[in-house]
Every structure is written in C-alpha cells, then in structure tokens.
C-alpha cells in the first residue's frame, strides 16, 4: 500500500514547540538535519519501501479556468497562506501502522541543539486500482 507523507512549510495542527527557521540554526545543525533526511530515504530504499521524494519551492500560485477563449485566472503567490506544502515522500509499505511508524521516525529529524523538531507530517493513503476479483 502506498502512502504520501506530506511535509508542510506552514499549516497542520499546533506545532509541538516553536523553533527558529533553518537559516538561523548553526551550520552543523543544518547539516545534521539534511543528513537525517537523506539517511532516512536511503534506509527505506534498503528496505524496499521507498518510492519517491520531491521538494517544492515555496512560491507558486492558484490557477483556474476562466471561460472559453480567456486566459486562466492566476491568484497568488500568497506570502501568508495558512497551508503551504514543502514536499513529499511516497512510501510503499505493509500497513497503515507501518506508514505511521515511519512518519513518526521522519518527524524526529533533528533541529536546533540536535533535538527532534517533532514536525507534523500528513500521512495520506493512495487510492488504489479496483481489485480484479470483486465478488
């Protein structure tokens, strides 16, 4: 079963604790954080559970159709939008429980002082293809 682990720049439940943005950490803390993320992905490749991971730039926009022959409406980018996705990891695992376990581990990435940042990650199951045998 595939799950999407969504990382947000902003949004989600009340943060466990507040911490400064990464550019205010020490270089060693930045390295430790990035190294943790990389090692996590490498370990999941090793267990055969890793599918994909991508990071997104913060600036984007909302776009919608505006009728025949008209250019689409573009709204944004929004500097203060409440919910902003930072990137994702897709994993293919045995169960929901395993997905939650891994998301919990990923959320323990170190921050200032080497302490886990307790970041909220959103876990969403993929909808699958319908089964071949349906009755």
């Amino acid at each position: 079963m595939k799950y999407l682990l969504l990382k947000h720049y902003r949004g989600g439940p009340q943060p466990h604790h507040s911490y400064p943005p990464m550019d205010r950490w020490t270089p060693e803390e930045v390295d430790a954080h990035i190294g943790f993320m990389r090692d996590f992905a490498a370990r999941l490749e090793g267990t055969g559970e890793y599918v994909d991971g991508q990071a997104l730039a913060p600036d984007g926009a909302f776009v919608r159709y505006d009728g025949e022959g008209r250019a689409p409406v573009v709204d944004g980018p929004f500097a203060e939008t409440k919910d902003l996705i930072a990137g994702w990891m897709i994993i293919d695992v045995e169960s929901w429980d395993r997905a939650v376990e891994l998301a919990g581990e990923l959320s323990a990435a170190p921050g200032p002082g080497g302490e886990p940042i307790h970041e909220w990650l959103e876990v969403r199951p993929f909808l699958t293809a319908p089964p071949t045998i349906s009755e």
Partner: protein
Amino acid sequence: MNDALLRELVPAVIAVLVRRGANFASAEDAVQEALVSALASWPEDPPRDPKGWLITAAWRKVLDEIRAGSSRRARELAVHAEPPSGPVQDADDTLQLYFLCAHPSLPPASAVALTLRAVGGLTTEQIAAAYLVPEATMAQRISRAKRRIAGQPLDRAGDLGTVLRVLYLLFNEGYGGDVDLAAEAIRITRQLAALADEPEVSGLLALMLLHHARRASRTGPGGRLVPLGEQDRATWDTALIAEGVGLLQAALARDRLGQYQAQAAIAALHADAPAAEETDWVQIVEWYDELVRLADSPVVRLNRAVAVGEADGPRAGLAAIAELDPGVPRYAAVAAHLHERAGDLTRAADLYAEAARTAASAPERDHCVRQAARVRQLGAASRRSARDPSG
C-alpha cells in the same frame, strides 16, 4: 563491442536508411527497434559486421512497415534498391541528423530527447530514466517531435548554433539519474567535432571537458554542493583539463571567437589556478566582457559581476549587480556573497536566506541555508567580540 560503440553507429545507420528512401521518422523508429534487439542479443551472439547487422535489421523493419499499410505506402517515397554510398556522404548525412534533431521549431526538451535518441543512440527507456519521466511519456515526446519536423528536408545545411545550444543544454543538466547525461553530451559533441571542423564546436567540447574535469570536487559528502573556491583541486582530472585546454588553444588560434570558446577560456583560467587565491580574475573579467559582447544575457552579467567582485573588490561587484534585475536566477546568492565580503553580515545572511527560498534545486537550496546559518554565526560572534573587546 560495447554499448557506447554500438550507440555511435546509430546516426550513420539512420542516414543510410533515409538515403535508401525511408522518411526520417520511420527510419529513426526502425533503428531504435533494431538497437533494442541488438542490446538484447549481441552480448550472447555478437555479429561480425555490427553496422551491417543494424542496417539489415532496421531496413527489414522499414519494409515491414511499408508492407503493413497501403495507406502508408503512399507516403513512403520510392525505395532505392542500390543506395549510393561513400564515407564523405555518410559524414554529411550524419551531420544533417544533428541539424534536424536540433531544429528551431522544436521545444528545447524535445530537441534534447530526439538528439539523445537519433544522434546519441540511447533507448527511449534510458532517456526516460535520465529525465525521471515514464517511458511512455518520453516515447510520446519523441514521436511528437518527429511529427513536428516531418517534411523538413534532410539535405540542407542547418544552423550549427542550434545544435550547439541543444548539446550545451544536455550537458548542463547532466549530473543526476542513472544515465550520465554529461558524459553523453561529451560523447555526442566529440562525434560532432569529428564531422564539423568549426572553432565553436571545439570550444563547446573544451568547455564540457574543463567542467567535467572538476566533477568529483563539485559535491561533498551526501551530495552537498561545494563552491569553486572550496573545491579540492587535487581531485581535478588533469588529463581532461589538458585535452580541453589543447582544443581551446587550437580553436582560439583560428581567430573566430564565439561564446563557447569564451566560456571555455573562463573555465580554463579556473582550471589553470593551482589554488583559488591564485585565480587570474582580471583576465576572467576580460573574457566576460567578450561574452557580454558575443552573447549578452542577465545571467552572463551576473557572473561577470562575481568576477568583478573578485578582481576589483566587493564594492565594485555590488556596483555591477546594481544594474541588474534582482529576478535573475542566483541574484540573491551573488548579492549575499558580495555583502559578506564587504563586511555586512546581517544583510548577507538575509540574502542567503532569500536565495534559499528562491533556489531552483535542492542542493542549491541546502547550500544557501548553510551559508545563511554560517554567516549568522559569524555575525553573532563579531557582535559578541565588539561588546567585549577583551574576550
């Protein structure tokens, strides 16, 4: 015969099929099919005449396709039974393929994909893997590109500049994925250099070799980006540098300067410096002036400002970027570097943080975050020592 040698035969085989009367699109498809069979069967059962094998196998596929549909037959031109052939014509025909694949009517991504397949002899599967897209998507991109250039005559000299631009693009995105696109770009440009004796082709090849020579030093542990000034120059590939410099000198001696020779000259000056501090920035600025004259762009001017900052000091560099649009990619990172060197650490850290937000790649973003963190730490330390001069 290894895969690389096999791939080198592809453009010449396509050219033979086209000369026998097949159109480019079906010849290219047929050779791709023959190539895939060759990759599967040759390791076990290598042919005595690899090129002959490919021509025969691909030609059979062209004929099969013609027989398969009478509607198609109308579109196929008369098929010559005895094609004229000769090495000179072979070379000219192969060169035409380069022009066709880099045709100005093609979007750059399509031109690159088509070049990799028809000139580079890569399979669709390999090209898809290199660009991290599904194979079916890449197959469609290539066939749409071929439809777009259908009917373009193969016997007309094209613009070498468009070919070089496509190869430059291919090289520039070359460090990632399972297929080494930078190495493929070098291989294809070498092939081109053997067909077209032009200083700019040599210039582009030299530029590629000089950058490729530094490749091992460009990334540190965990894929982190190492800027030129901090690279371990002992790991630079001296053989590639020597080859690149030799090609460049021969090209420059012909006195027909172009943008790739100018870029290669800048790369050669970096390669020539035993340590970052020994870089001849004054001469590099002069080459950037040539580059602005030959191929002006905001990116070139931004890079020139970096060189000016090194040659004449950070204030001069800041004055040079003041004339540029801050929307140019990497503007914030360059500004941050110059402000740091000018001693304005707070401004530098904020600009590095901004550069991280606007970075186009993850390694670049991580690098800028690290720089911001480093400069903020420096700033905090200097504020502490200002408060307590004894400590």
